[in-house]
């Protein structure tokens, strides 16, 4: 592990995708931040009032959530407004969106292979 990596706050290296989302959600404070903005936009300062940590630490958490694709950020003057991107929190959909096309590919394979086997059996009979 290099020094730069060791000095980085945990999870900041996260890109997008399930791994990044998992890392972002590993922290209870970040989970509470998501719950705060699930139904309406809030400015970073408003979010910070719910926590006993510095505004800077809150901003760092928000940036991490944004980078993982969980939050969207909108600027209004000097304020940054955050809201939840619900489409990023869809493990059920993600599982199924991957499951069904793969399953149908296998269905095609087993049906067509089963048919070929029957035809070969008929020919050798």
């Amino acid at each position, binding site marked *: 592990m290099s020094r730069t990596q060791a000095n980085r706050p945990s999870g900041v290296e996260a890109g997008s995708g399930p791994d990044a989302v998992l890392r972002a959600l590993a922290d209870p404070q970040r989970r509470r931040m998501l719950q705060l903005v699930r139904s309406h936009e809030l400015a970073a300062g408003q979010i910070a009032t719910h926590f006993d940590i510095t505004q800077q630490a809150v901003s760092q958490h928000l940036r991490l959530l944004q980078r993982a694709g969980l939050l969207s950020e909108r600027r209004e003057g000097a304020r940054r407004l955050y809201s939840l991107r*619900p489409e990023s929190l869809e493990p059920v959909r*993600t599982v199924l969106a*991957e499951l069904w096309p793969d399953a149908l590919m296998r269905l095609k394979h087993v*049906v067509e292979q089963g048919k070929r086997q029957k035809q070969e059996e008929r020919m050798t009979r």
Partner: protein
Amino acid sequence: MSRPDTLRASIRIAATPAEIFPYLVEPRLLVQWIGTWADLNPEPGGVFALNVGDTPVRGAFVSVDPPHRVVFTWGVPGSAALPAGSSTVEILLTAEGSETVVELFHHDLPADELPQHEAGWTSFLDRLRQVASS
């Protein structure tokens, strides 16, 4: 807050609907393409039980119209986001020449399932972990 949604997948198979249909309703044939274990009673109200990896999928057949259409409910017992029987899978088989187009619709999926309570996060994160590692 929850916004029901539908997933769609389709494929073209070089076989007739009658040749494909048994693969949708017979446990021995179903597990050749999805899941590892199945218990199916393909009649309206009949049991639809399937294990996909470690995940038990439970529901009931809604409609069974061989060889063109089958509908069953789909859910995971104990899941807050997708309880047993909460979503619906519809499979349509349409002959096109010597082939069949298989269309699959997965209806009534939760589009937003951010857990409401801290307890809900545990199963949510477990599922997400499965996605991440698959």
